[in-house]
């Protein structure tokens, strides 16, 4: 019990619950099960993305191209759906994930084979992927009336009281938890982040594992591309513009150390929930939604300060391949 009390995930969970309860005091009904499930559904996409980002951040890299990847993959499947409405939606979902996987492989290959820092690679592909949307679509949008009913419904069908969108997030989260705690790949991701040199001696192919991390983040971003387009019923160049930093913010708030090797699946999910709850709570307690950005900014700064207190202080610097302090 005391061990649980000492984890940051526990306290983050307490804060998220407290925010829901606090908002409920001001506006009864906010904490009702139906509404909480609604918030969860609204945060599902961010949760999946945060998990993908986590895999990359654990290896001391960062994937800034996730939002552009999402928008590109989503746009492609939306256009295919508009042109061939007879294609079954699960095929399109798989296709979205495959496109995302391909884009992630491109990032990963540049990091692995050429040794270019991840932040530079993904900064480049961030603009390239988004530019490609414009080229492919010729600047056009895909609107609701062009999408097939199935395409829109596959995130909305209610199963056991929750829309499918929420179920996707749950399944992926469970899968991710098993991957991170029960497989050698998951442990390798942590090992690389904690000590790359020692990982090599332990027989881990550091470059290849980083490559796989980018494949994971890419495939999840691609899959979320379908989810996003279906959820918000719009495919355009502007989809998820600037969202890459929200994804990183979820991870940071969730206690995933940007210096690599530290963080948990539960943390990433809670980090995303934190932002999701703020998002939903502000309008309810009559604070202008324009406050949201400043609040999440303040939350990130606070989270980093708390993270740093938890970790040992030492020569850890971001963007440097220094040896970790512990």
């Amino acid at each position, binding site marked *: 019990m005391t061990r649980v009390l000492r984890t940051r995930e526990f306290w983050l969970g307490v804060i998220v619950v407290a925010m829901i309860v606090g908002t409920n005091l001001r506006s009864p009904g906010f904490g009702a099960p139906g509404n909480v499930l609604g918030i969860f559904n609204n945060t599902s996409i961010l949760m999946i993305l945060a998990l993908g980002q986590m895999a990359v951040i654990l290896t001391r890299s960062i994937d800034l191209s996730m939002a552009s990847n999402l928008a590109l993959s989503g746009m492609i499947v939306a256009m295919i759906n508009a042109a061939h409405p007879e294609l079954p939606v699960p095929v399109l979902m798989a296709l979205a994930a495959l496109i995302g996987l391909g884009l992630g492989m491109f990032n990963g290959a540049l990091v692995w084979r050429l040794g270019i820092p991840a932040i530079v690679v993904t900064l480049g592909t961030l603009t390239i992927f988004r530019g490609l949307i414009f080229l492919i679509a010729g600047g056009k949008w895909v609107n609701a009336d062009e999408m097939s009913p199935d395409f829109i419904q596959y995130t909305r069908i209610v199963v056991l009281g929750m829309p499918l969108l929420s179920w996707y997030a749950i399944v992926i989260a469970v899968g991710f938890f098993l991957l991170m705690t029960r497989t050698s790949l998951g442990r390798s991701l942590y090992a690389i982040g904690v000590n790359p040199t020692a990982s090599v001696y332990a027989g881990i192919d550091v470059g290849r594992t980083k490559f796989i991390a980018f494949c994971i983040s890419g495939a999840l971003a691609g899959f979320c591309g379908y989810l996003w387009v279906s959820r918000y019923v719009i495919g355009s160049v502007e989809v998820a513009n600037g969202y890459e930093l929200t994804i990183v913010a979820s991870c940071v708030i969730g206690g995933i150390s940007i210096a690599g090797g530290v963080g948990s699946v539960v943390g990433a999910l809670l980090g995303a929930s934190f932002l999701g709850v703020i998002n939903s709570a502000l309008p309810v307690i009559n604070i202008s939604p324009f406050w949201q950005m*400043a609040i999440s900014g303040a939350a990130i*700064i606070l989270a980093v300060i708390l993270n*740093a207190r938890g970790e040992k202080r030492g020569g850890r610097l971001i963007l440097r391949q220094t040896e970790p302090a512990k």
Partner: protein
Amino acid sequence: MKDDARNTRHIPDRLDSPVRAAVLSWPSLLLAVAIGLFILNSLASPYFLSPWSLSDATFNFTEKAIIALAMALLIISGEIDLSVASIIALASTMMGLALQFGVDTPGLVAIGIATGLACGAFNGLLVTRLGLPSIVVTIGTMSFFRGISFIVLGDQAFKGYPPSFAFFGQGYVWWVVSFEFALFLVFACAYYVLLHRTSFGRWIFVIGNNQIAARFSGVRVERVKFILFCLTGLMSGIASVLLTSRLASTRPSIAMGWELEVVTMVVLGGVNILGGAGSIQGVVLAAFIMGLVTFGLGLLNVPGIVMSIFIGALLIVVIALPIVVGRIRGRSAG
């Protein structure tokens, strides 16, 4: 095993012949690219080679380039500031707010610059005092600073800046040379001297290459980094004055996404994103290259979003090329 970029990083004070080094250096490569682009552009469009259109082209990049100068120093020291575009937004909002209280041009400029400096100092304090990683801190302040603008402005805009304020972003000092561009050239010279001709500049390189060694050598690492964050904030404040004056209005979405363009400019300029290497000449040339690419493509009616593909590809290719070439050379030699 291969701790990638760290081992391949070149140490700036090389010992071989300065002539050979200068010819093979990153800035000379960039210069060749810039000249090539210039020729291509003038062949591609008859409107390119006119003093006025070239002058107009400079407006595309000078504000970003002014920030890139300070950002280069910060990245060489091993840190980064992703909040620069949000500092522009906040500084611009503060100027707009002051305008509502009847503050005149000199006061507006002072407020804009002071806000930038204060934001930079805030970043610097968090990074140096609390020992936090700058990339996360500035992702946080990036939301925070722009968030304040959104709180103040919502979906509104500040307008009605005094006519005398327009000079900074729209005025010309001599013939086709705009005030912005002249200011950029002055700053470029100043930063060149600061980075390459003073002991402060050497400290920046030392910190970027080996922070621990720097500390043992008596360099006050925290203080230098703090000053660099302040400088980056200051330059963002100045850029905010220029941009606000050029647009003659303030919206909270002003300069959205610029942070990534500024970083691209710096990295394209040959500054090692891991710190420890880079030059002001390179950054200035990279600014011109980005300006030439966007302006040239603009003359050819290429939409802005497609240009961003070129910029992104340019960034990756320019970094990947020396690595690939070096590997092929290494293979044939060995």
